[in-house]
């Protein structure tokens, strides 16, 4: 009687040990082999793709045959190997890889996945189409801008930016109000990638009811128009028949809307509008910027106004900038000092005037002098290089 349970327990223990050993062996042999195979296959495909890139011509039939994937796992592996190379290269060197993506059927499968019920599959497809697809996938990606999943919409917008699909810009601007901040930033960057031709929809975005749309539109405009190159670029980027429309819209309507936006109730919208004014070199806005520097309750906005006046080299605003050196916010005083330094030495000499000497914060004078010296040195070296 006693022996029977002992035997059962021993047998049970033995079976457990055998199962454990079997599991370990399975993991070691089968899973190990799978990873080894995957690694080798990835290496092989990688070398093949490198050779195609090196030749810079169309993939040969034998190569395409070698790159054929058998199932989901091999497909993901090929996509991984291919996309890694796509991310590293631009220009002509990328063309063979785009052809591989198209001719092995990866592009079509991604387009099918874009309509899948699986959210992860849609996200993956939207991403890979942006990284590797041709411009013919634009329409499907534009459709994905209305996807119920927020991530898919954001990824599709980024992909459209990567592919340079300018017709998608108005749809992308409308997305600002329905997405999280992170994705809005992704879309703003995608619009910046698309360039000055997106200014028309962005200008419309400046008067949108949604605070997010107004803010990110101003932010994108500011980045697109940096260094005052925008006016020329806008004319260059658009076809001639549209240039007259643009003249009507830009700069007047854009500048008017930006000026109006500097009175927005949201501080970050006001700041973005001020930055955009500096980027568009709206010299007619200096009076308003001076007013912001004096009156705006938020230090970040006042600091942005000081920086904008410096960027525009608004010498006529020097007096207001000198007063801003006494601002209780260090940010405002610092930006004002940098702006003054950018204007050069004559303005700084005014600091030494007896009436001003007592009222200006002394700790900033040295800072300004250092910045001015730096600025004049830079100007000197630039003039030297021009000569």
């Amino acid at each position, binding site marked *: 009687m006693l022996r029977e349970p002992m035997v059962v327990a021993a047998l049970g223990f033995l079976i457990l040990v055998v199962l454990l050993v079997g599991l370990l062996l399975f993991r070691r042999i089968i899973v190990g082999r799978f990873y080894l195979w995957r690694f080798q296959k990835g290496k092989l495909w990688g*070398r093949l793709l*490198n*050779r195609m890139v*090196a030749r810079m011509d169309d993939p040969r039939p034998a190569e395409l045959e070698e790159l054929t994937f058998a199932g989901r796992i091999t497909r993901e592996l090929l996509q991984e190997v291919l996309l890694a190379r796509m991310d590293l*290269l631009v*220009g002509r060197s990328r063309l063979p890889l785009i052809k591989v993506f198209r001719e092995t059927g990866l592009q079509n499968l991604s387009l099918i996945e874009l309509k899948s019920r699986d959210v992860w599959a849609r996200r993956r497809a939207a991403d890979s189409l942006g990284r590797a697809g041709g411009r013919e996938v634009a329409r499907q990606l534009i459709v994905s801008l209305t996807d119920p999943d927020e991530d898919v919409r954001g990824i599709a917008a980024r992909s459209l930016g990567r592919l340079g699909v300018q017709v998608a810009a108005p749809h992308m601007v409308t997305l600002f109000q329905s997405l999280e901040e992170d994705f809005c930033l992704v879309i703003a960057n995608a619009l910046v990638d698309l360039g000055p031709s997106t200014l028309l929809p962005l200008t419309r975005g400046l008067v949108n009811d949604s605070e997010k749309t107004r803010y990110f539109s101003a932010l994108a405009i500011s980045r697109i128009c940096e260094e005052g190159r925008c006016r020329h670029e806008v004319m260059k980027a658009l076809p001639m028949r549209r240039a007259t429309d643009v003249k009507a819209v830009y700069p007047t309507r854009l500048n008017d809307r930006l000026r109006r936006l500097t009175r927005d109730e949201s501080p970050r919208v006001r700041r973005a509008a001020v930055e955009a004014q500096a980027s568009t070199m709206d010299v007619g806005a200096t009076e308003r910027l001076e007013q912001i520097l004096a009156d705006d309750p938020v230090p970040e906005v006042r600091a942005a106004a000081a920086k904008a006046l410096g960027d525009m080299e608004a010498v006529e605003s020097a007096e207001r900038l000198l007063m801003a050196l006494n601002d209780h916010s260090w940010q405002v005083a610092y930006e004002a000092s940098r702006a003054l330094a950018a204007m050069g030495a004559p303005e700084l000499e005014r600091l030494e005037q007896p009436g001003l000497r007592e009222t200006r914060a002394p700790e900033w004078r040295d800072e300004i002098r250092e910045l001015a010296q730096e600025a004049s040195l830079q100007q000197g070296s630039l003039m030297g290089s021009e000569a």
Partner: protein
Amino acid sequence: MRLVCVDKDELTLGILEARFSHISWRARFCRSAEDALVMVRQSSPDVLITGIQLEASNGYNLISAIRADSNPRVAFIPIVILSYMSRNDYIMRGLRLGADDFIAKPFDLINLENDIRQLAEVPDAT
């Protein structure tokens, strides 16, 4: 054309290797600054291509070590930085240390070749 290429990223090295061998340029590849320095001293290449992030060190240290070398054949080798780290301050730091050119990733192989040719003063074969 003789080159030394150093980068932590195996993918970059693989693509460069395939391209350079396709156009019959002799290139040596490594992943660490120490190995690159040895290769440069051994073979005095026409151009050195370096990344900023290398194994156990960085491209800036490598550039400084090369420019400070007592052998003028090593110290005056043209250097191209090829990196994802393309912010102005990274570029300026590399150029101040003595790099001759900076090419940002993602990059175009044709542009890279043209820049190398210019630095090595070799006329374009095409």
